[in-house]
């Protein structure tokens, strides 16, 4: 999913030779860049992976020579040190990347949400896994009444839950991790608070799992059931 732009492969940062773009001189107002370069710029901006001149030529329906000229023009504009974004040649293709000098700020921005509190969907999913583990994703979904896929993915990524084998039906099972215990300051799962404190109908006798499934199905409007 995230190829990280392969920013460790060195050598990609070659500045473009200025003389590569002589024909790019156009008659448009000073700071406007030619249409093809603008389109190429947009494509580079939108694409996750580096794009080759051939790919760009196909998409823009322009000749490869014209695309290379446009790239050279952009390379000049996006030369290292000029902007916050740089044009780089990587693995035979072109890609836009943020300037490494901006990385501290980027880290402050991007790593921040990971430390913040859990979203309601994440808290619910985590609670279900914590109290009912091991449990499969379909069951989590049934209890929540709505998909838990993205919450599960985030919890996995944050290392709060982990896989724990497969159910008899082949679904992956999840359990909480050691990191989970640490984050919540618990020595063991035994220390999870007693649900009875928050139970809206404590008189119910059935197992927690069964009750959660029943409530979830009622919420999802699983249809009238006597």
């Amino acid at each position, binding site marked *: 999913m995230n190829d990280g732009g392969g920013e460790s492969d060195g050598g990609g940062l070659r500045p473009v030779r200025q003389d590569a773009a002589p024909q790019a001189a156009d008659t448009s107002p000073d700071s406007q860049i030619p249409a093809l370069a603008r389109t190429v710029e947009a494509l580079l901006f939108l694409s996750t992976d580096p794009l080759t001149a051939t790919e760009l030529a196909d998409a823009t329906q322009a000749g490869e020579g014209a695309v290379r000229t446009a790239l050279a023009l952009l390379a000049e504009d996006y030369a290292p040190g000029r902007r916050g974004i740089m044009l780089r040649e990587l693995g035979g293709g072109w890609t836009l990347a943020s300037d490494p000098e901006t990385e501290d700020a980027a*880290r402050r921005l991007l790593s921040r949400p990971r430390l913040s509190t859990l979203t309601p969907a994440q808290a619910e999913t*985590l609670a279900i896994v914590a109290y009912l583990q091991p449990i499969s994703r379909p069951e989590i979904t049934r209890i929540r009444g709505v998909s838990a896929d993205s919450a599960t993915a985030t919890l996995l990524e944050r290392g709060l839950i982990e896989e724990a084998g497969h159910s008899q039906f082949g679904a992956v099972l999840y359990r909480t991790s050691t990191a989970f215990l640490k*984050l919540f*300051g618990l020595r063991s799962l035994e220390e999870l*608070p007693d*649900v009875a404190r928050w139970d809206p109908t404590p008189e119910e006798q059935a197992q*927690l799992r069964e009750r959660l499934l029943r409530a979830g199905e*009622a919420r999802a409007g699983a249809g009238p059931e006597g």
Partner: protein
Amino acid sequence: MSLAALELDLDVFSGPFDLLLTLVLREEVDLLELQLAEVVLAYLDHLESRGELDLETATEFIVLIAALLELKSRLMLSDGEEELLDIEPEQAAEELLARMLDARRYRAASAHLAELLSGEHGVRFREAPPPAHLRRTIVQPQEGSQDPAVLGEAIGRLLLTPPTINVRHIAVPRVSVGERLAHLRTLLRRGSFSFDEAVEGADRMTVAVTLFALLELYKRGEADWSQGECFGEIAIKARVGEADAPPLARAGGLAG
């Protein structure tokens, strides 16, 4: 095509569908005299003659006909069985008006949104995830920084069961779909039966709930039903084999 193009030739009205709606709302056509089944049949004929199904129009039609059905059933039920219904004509009118205004409001708002969206045509955003090394957390989350009560609370919330099916205008349903389902299933063991048999001697409410139960059986693929003609007998038979794949076939029952 739009629904406006649907021409009707009914006992009490002939003209375009749109006009019919207007007249019903202005009370110039009596909804109680209007056979909604005829409207549905006219629409089906119309579809057949065009040879294609326009989903948008079909959706619109279903919404409108469902509204008419609801309105009509309220009008029918609001008499004679008042004790079942907690609703006065004034209240019904108010509620209906509010719903019509709501529907109209949000349909107009949706048109506005569609316009906004088309105005943004071609504007795209970058979806590439930021490089992993920039997303990596620098500071480890502090031990014990989260309160375990959050988890207990979440479970408590998940244990909440919503109130049972929303049967809006009915104060106290005396018959449950579950009961009627059980009843139908008993009959179904014989292989087939008619709807009339299933509701013999029953009051209106029970008939309505039984129909609902029948829909449920159909949805679950337990039974098939067919109705040879409008207001004719509804024949119900057990479906065997293909357990949970309800066929796309006609679901008969146009009684209305």
